[in-house]
């Protein structure tokens, strides 16, 4: 299979501590890959290095064979959701997306299309500060698919969602994956991810501790059981 995302010996150090410690892994094309681990494991830091928001202390992270910063018109290749911030609270959902669309030379009509896809059309003219957490997450997803990218990188997209929101997200990711997209989704909710992902990368204390298809990593157990075995029973 063709690897479209790769981490090679990635190290990111903050204040003498390795938040990410010699991470080498790859993500295959057309698969949903869960980037799993407890809070503070280094998932978000690794993803920030991957999309060029943080500079690696050493090693590298590449998408489609190049660092993110070297991608031409990156929004058309990679859609990213890092957190539910990232949008201006005093602007409406539609205005926020139009700012992004303008920067990527995407027509405004596409903004309305993606708002409909994430079921936010009726709230499009509402200020973002009046959005619920679930609505903010959906707006972030709308921003990620604005350029109709072939790769999606989602950091804890289910955070703060209620059960209905999580079910909606699961369906939404499946629809996106059926279109042949590669999706790298990070989460600390191992049980939930078991229903969503094809492949798994498990990280703990900055280090990769397991990688493979979901079935290979889980064996006969659940993902959570497999994780507890791999980490010696500690979810920290």
């Amino acid at each position, binding site marked *: 299979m063709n690897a479209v995302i790769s981490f090679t010996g990635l190290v990111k150090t903050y204040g003498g501590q390795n938040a990410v410690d010699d991470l080498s892994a790859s993500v295959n094309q057309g698969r949903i890959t869960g980037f799993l681990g407890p809070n503070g494991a280094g998932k978000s830091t690794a993803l*920030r290095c991957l*999309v*060029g*928001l*943080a*500079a690696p202390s050493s090693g590298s992270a590449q998408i489609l064979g190049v660092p*993110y*910063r070297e*991608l031409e018109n*990156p*929004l058309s290749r990679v859609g*990213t959701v*890092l*957190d539910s*911030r*990232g*949008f*201006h*609270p*005093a*602007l409406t959902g539609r*205005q926020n997306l*139009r*700012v*992004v669309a*303008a*920067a*990527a*030379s995407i027509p405004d009509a596409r903004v309305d299309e993606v708002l409909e896809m994430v079921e936010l059309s009726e709230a499009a003219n509402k200020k973002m500060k009046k959005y619920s957490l679930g609505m903010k997450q959906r707006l972030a997803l709308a*921003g990620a698919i604005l350029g109709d990218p072939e790769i999606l990188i989602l950091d804890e997209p289910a955070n703060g969602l209620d059960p209905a929101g999580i079910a909606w997200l699961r369906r939404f990711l499946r629809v996106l994956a059926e279109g042949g997209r590669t999706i790298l989704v990070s989460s600390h909710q191992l049980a939930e991810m078991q229903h969503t992902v094809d492949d798994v990368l498990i990280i703990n204390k900055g280090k990769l501790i397991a990688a493979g298809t979901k079935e290979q990593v889980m064996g006969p157990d659940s993902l959570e059981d497999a994780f507890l075995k791999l980490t010696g029973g500690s979810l920290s």
Partner: protein
Amino acid sequence: MSLLKSEWRKLVYVRAHWGLLVGAVVLAGFGTAVTPIILDSNSATFGLALDQQTAVDSVYANAISSYIFAIIIGIMLMSGEFRHGTAVATFLTAPKRGTVLANKLGIAAIGGALVMVLSTGAGIAAGWVTLSFFENVAEPSSGVFLNTMIAAVVSGSILGIVGVAIGTLIRNQMLAITGSLIYLFVVDPILLTLVPEAGKWLPSGLITAMLALDIQAPEFGIDTANYLPPLTATLVLLGYGVVFGVVAIATSLRRDID
């Protein structure tokens, strides 16, 4: 062009920026409108009366007083990115940070110039209306309106750029705005009065110098005889813009985005 369009949308979509424009217009208009009244009632103290051309010129020169709003717009354009986390979306969409900053500096320059042109225009109009109520008012010098508008455009553009640079260096928006206010309204005037030789190189001394006024009132901290020639002052202020612009780009290239 796409990044310019995106940055322009950030400027015009945020209502607070329109509030700043209104504030600038009101401050310049009010400040200029009351200047003739103050000069007329205290002509002995100031040594200036409205039948003197210098006094009328200084009334119109007051129209340029809203330049702090140009800096604040620049600060809000940049530090707002960090305050609201929109820097993430900005740099994910356009990861070449130098290009993003160059476009943001361009829009800040345009925004600062627009604020200054509109507020200065409002100030000149307000000054003209107030002066029309007085008798024996001198004619303004032939260059005062042109000099004031040129100074408004140049200072607005450069201070917008300086604002973006400050917002890049000091990511806390309130701290950046408060620090700029303290500098421009406290530190800069004090330096201009106490150390005129150094003060004439500082922003408010340079902006006043660009107006090409002839006012000798050292007891009030204004003695334009000590100021730089208008063209030199314009070039020095442009130098400030270049230095701050380079600092903004260099700083944004290195730091991680939270």
